[in-house]
């Protein structure tokens, strides 16, 4: 026999709210942070940064959806798409970051013949 607490938990699991999307974004963010902090390959570090940016984008779009459901006097309504506009700006930023980062990576590889982050120590004091 199922307890009442379990049933309400299942109900909350099956009813997809804004919090579900935020938790998914947090999980992706954590994966990206682990990748940035532990990997040696610069390409994979850059990909982890893309994961982090995507987690932020997911949060922005989910909260934009949440805000659209707010009453109009609080700034809500169907036209409240600010989060989505921000997500587009973040995607622009990610494109710029990837282009410059990969350019730096090519210059670095040409000089040192490696792609490991811990061998980038020219500026280390």
């Amino acid at each position, binding site marked *: 026999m199922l307890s009442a607490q379990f049933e309400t938990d299942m109900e909350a*699991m099956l*009813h*997809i*709210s804004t*919090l*579900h*999307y*935020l*938790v*998914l974004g*947090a*999980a*992706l*963010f*954590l*994966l*990206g*942070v*682990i*990748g940035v*902090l*532990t*990997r*040696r*390959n610069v*390409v994979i570090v850059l*990909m982890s940064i*893309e*994961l982090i940016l*995507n987690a932020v984008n997911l949060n922005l*779009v*989910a909260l*934009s*959806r949440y805000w*659209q*459901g707010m009453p109009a006097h609080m700034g809500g309504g*169907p*036209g409240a*798409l600010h989060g*989505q*506009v921000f*997500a*587009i*700006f973040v995607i622009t*930023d*990610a*494109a*710029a970051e*990837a*282009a*410059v980062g*990969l*350019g730096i*990576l*090519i*210059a670095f*590889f040409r000089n040192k013949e490696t*792609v*490991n*982050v811990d061998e980038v120590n020219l500026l280390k004091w």
Partner: protein
Amino acid sequence: MNPVATPFFFYLLAGIMIIGGILVITRKNAVHSALALITTLLAQAAIYLMLYAPFVAGVQIILYAGGIMVLFLFVIMLINIERTQKERQFNKQWLVGIAAAAALGGLFIAVYTKGKTLFPEGRVSYEEVQNTQGVATLLFDRHAGVYMFAFEIASLLLLVAIIGAVVMAKKRI
């Protein structure tokens, strides 16, 4: 139009995204990581569709999965990947890194369990509107376009990125 089987699709896409993310940070071969990242990005585009954001979903597919990831794959092909596969994949501080990430995860869990009531029933009931037109109104409209200046600054950012990429990839820097 009412969404169909939202929990099923949410958990399916969330599972694909999490597994893709784990593969990105654990694979030895950078090409496999890039392919896993493309899968994650496409699943995320589907999640945007579930959130009634078709324009952002299209931008995600065209720009992220189509543009940025091609750039990544191109650079992976340019650099020598055979040698890096034989080396150690994780750095010496990996334990500290995972501990720091776990601390951050604990912070997230604390925030989301304490702040659960901030997000009451997220069910929104409004008619599906022209999403792309709404985004364009915020970006370009003469009166309602609050982000027009930011949009122009974004073009400047892209110009800087182009110059930076060209200078960095020059033969002698």
